[in-house]
C-alpha cells in the first residue's frame, strides 16, 4: 500500500461562468520515505497539487488515497486531525505568527494535538535543535533572518513528528546561501529521520536534493524520473 496515491486527479476553479481546469487527470503513487520534488513553470498546477495532497483543499474529480483511505470519506474535523498529526507544512512566505517567540511558533501545532501539555516544551525545543536554532528560542520572527525564519517553519512542521512534510517553494524567498542551508536541513530530515518529503520548486538546482522529480506542464505530468546525481548536503560537516 502506497502512502499516497492519486488516480485521474482533476481540479478546476469556477469563477462565475468561466471554469479553469488546473489539473487535468494526474496519476502517481508516492511511497513512505520518498523524497519527491514536483517541478514546473508557474501556472503548471504544482501548488494546487500540493494543496490537494496536503489536504488543504479538495480535488474536483478523481481519487486521492492517503494511507490507503479515500480522502473523500474524511469529514472536515478528520481532515484537520490528519493535517495536525500526519502532515507538516513549510511555506514560501514562512507564515510565522508575528510578535510570538520562536518557541511559541514551533509549539503551535501541538496546541491542536492530543499531546499532553507537559511534553510541548521539550518537543518544541527538540525540533528547534534539529534545525540548529537553539540559540534563538526566545527571539521573535522580526529578529530573525529569512533563512532562520524558514528553519523555524521547518521546526514547526517537524514538531508533531508527521509522516509527510510538504514544502512549497521553501527557498523562494531566500538568498542562495540560506536556501542551500534550508534544503540541506530538509534533506537531512529525510535521510536521518525517514520523513516523506514532497517539495514544490521551479528550480532544478533545488529539485536535485530530492530522489525523484515529477515535472508538470499545463496540469499534466510531463515526466516522472529518479534523480541520478543527487545533490548531497554538506551541512554540519565543517
Amino acid at each position, binding site marked *: 500500500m502506497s502512502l499516497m496515491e492519486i488516480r485521474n486527479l482533476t481540479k478546476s476553479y469556477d469563477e462565475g461562468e468561466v471554469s479553469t481546469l488546473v489539473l487535468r487527470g494526474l496519476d502517481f503513487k508516492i511511497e513512505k520515505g520518498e523524497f519527491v520534488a514536483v517541478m514546473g513553470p508557474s501556472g503548471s498546477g504544482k501548488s494546487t497539487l500540493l494543496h490537494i495532497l496536503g489536504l*488543504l*483543499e479538495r480535488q474536483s474529480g478523481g481519487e486521492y488515497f492517503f494511507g490507503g483511505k479515500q480522502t473523500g470519506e474524511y469529514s472536515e*474535523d478528520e481532515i484537520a486531525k490528519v*493535517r*495536525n498529526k500526519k502532515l507538516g507544512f513549510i511555506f514560501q512566505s514562512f*507564515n510565522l505568527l508575528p510578535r510570538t517567540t520562536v518557541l511559541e511558533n514551533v509549539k*503551535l501545532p501541538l496546541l491542536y494535538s492530543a499531546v499532553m501539555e507537559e511534553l510541548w516544551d521539550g518537543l518544541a525545543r527538540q525540533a528547534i535543535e534539529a534545525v540548529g536554532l537553539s540559540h534563538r528560542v526566545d527571539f521573535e520572527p522580526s529578529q530573525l533572518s529569512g533563512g532562520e525564519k524558514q528553519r523555524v517553519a521547518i521546526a514547526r512542521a517537524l514538531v508533531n513528528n508527521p509522516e509527510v512534510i510538504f514544502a512549497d517553494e521553501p527557498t523562494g524567498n531566500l538568498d542562495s546561501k540560506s536556501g542551500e542551508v534550508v534544503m540541506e536541513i530538509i534533506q537531512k530530515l529525510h535521510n536521518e529521520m525517514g520523513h516523506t518529503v514532497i517539495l514544490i520548486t521551479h528550480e532544478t538546482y533545488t529539485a536535485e536534493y530530492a530522489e525523484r522529480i515529477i515535472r508538470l506542464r499545463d496540469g499534466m505530468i510531463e515526466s516522472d524520473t529518479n534523480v541520478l546525481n543527487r545533490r548531497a548536503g554538506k551541512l554540519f560537516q565543517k
Partner: protein
Amino acid sequence: MLLYHSIKIALVGLKTNKTRSALTILGIVIGVTAIIMVVSLGQGAKDLILGQIEGLGARVIGIIPGRQPKGPTDILATLTASLKERDLAALGRKENVPHAADIMPVVFGSETASYEGETYRPTIFGGSELMADIYDSYPERGRGITADDVRGSADVVVLGQTVAEKLSPDRDLLGERIKIKGRNFLVIGILAKKGGASFINFDEMALMPYTTAQNYIFGIKYFNRIIVRADSEANVAVTVEDVKATLRELHGITDPDKDDFGIETQADLLKTVGTVLSTLTVFLAMVAAISLVVGGVGIMNIMLVSVTDRTREIGLRKALGATNRNILTQFLLEAIILTGIGGIVGILFGAGLSFAVSLVINNVFGLAWIFTFPIGAALLGIAISTIVGLIFGLYPARKASYMSPIDALRHE
C-alpha cells in the same frame, strides 16, 4: 483541545494586538462606567435625601390641611383652611392622643424682609418654642423662640445664615431690628449654616412665633401644618390613628375618603421619595445600558476587521490542524475576554469616578454624601458586557471559522 488552551490562544491573540484590543473595549468601558456611575451616584443621592428625611425624626407626624388629592382632577384638595386653633387644642388633650409628646402648629409663606435698604425674600416659618428641638435648628448665636414669645406674639425673629448675609453682608444683625411686611422685628438669633440641600432649607428662613406670623404677617386664623411628635417610634402608628380619629370627630367626618386633612409620616415620605429615586436610577442605568449595545456593535466591527486582517493566521492555524470549532472558539473567546476586561475596567473607572465625585460633594458642597460601590450593578455590568461580546462576537467568529485554509494562506 482544552478550553484552557483556547483561552490561552485568545489571550495571546489579544496581547499581540494591544492597541486594537484597547480601542475595541473603549465602548464597553464607557458603557459600564456610565452604568456604575449612574447607579453609584443614584444610590448616594438617595441615601443623602433619605438621610435628610430621616433627619426630620422618625417620631414626627405632619398633619396637612385640606383633602388629600386622590387623582389629578381632585379640585377640593385645595381647601387648606381646615386646621385651626380648636384642632390644636383637641390634639393636645391626653385622652384624645395619649402618645403625643409634643404638638406644634406651623405657618409658613414668603414675605419681603428689609434692613437699611437691603431687601430679601425669605421663607417666614412660624412655629413654637419646640421648633429648635424638632428640626434640630438651634441658633448658633443669640437665643431661639420661647414660649413667652409665642404667648405674647412677640416681634422677634431668628434668621438663617443666607438671610442674614443677604440683608447685611457686613454687619452682624444679632440685636438689630429688621422690617418684615412693614413691621419691626428684633433679631434674637442667627442659625448655624446647614448646607444647600437640606430637606428643609433653614438657611433661607426667618423663624418667628407662629402667633406673630399668623396675626401680623399672613393675617390668617389657620395653620399650614400641625406637627405631632409621638413619645416613641413604636407609637407612631397608634398616634396617627388617634390623630385621625380626633380630627374626624371634631370635623364631623364619617367617611375616611372625605377627610379634610392628610397625614405625613417619615416612613411614608421615605417610601415615596425612595421609590421615585430608585425608578430614576433604574431608568438612567437602562439608558447607560444602551450604550453597551453600541459598544457591542463597535466590537463586532473591529472583530470583522480583525478576522480579515488575520486571514493568514487563520489559514495557518487550519493548515496546522485547527478545526473550524477551534477557530470559532478562539475568536469568540477573544470577543468575550475583551468585553469582560472592558466590563472590569469600566467598573473600576465607574467606581473611581463615583468616589471622586463623592469627595467633591463632601468637601466642596459640605454634604454628608456616602460613596457606595454598587455590587449588583457591577455584576450586571460584567454579565451584560460578556453577553454583548458573545452576541456580537459570534458573527465574526463564524466567518473566521468557515475560511478555507488555502484561501486564507494565499491572502496577501
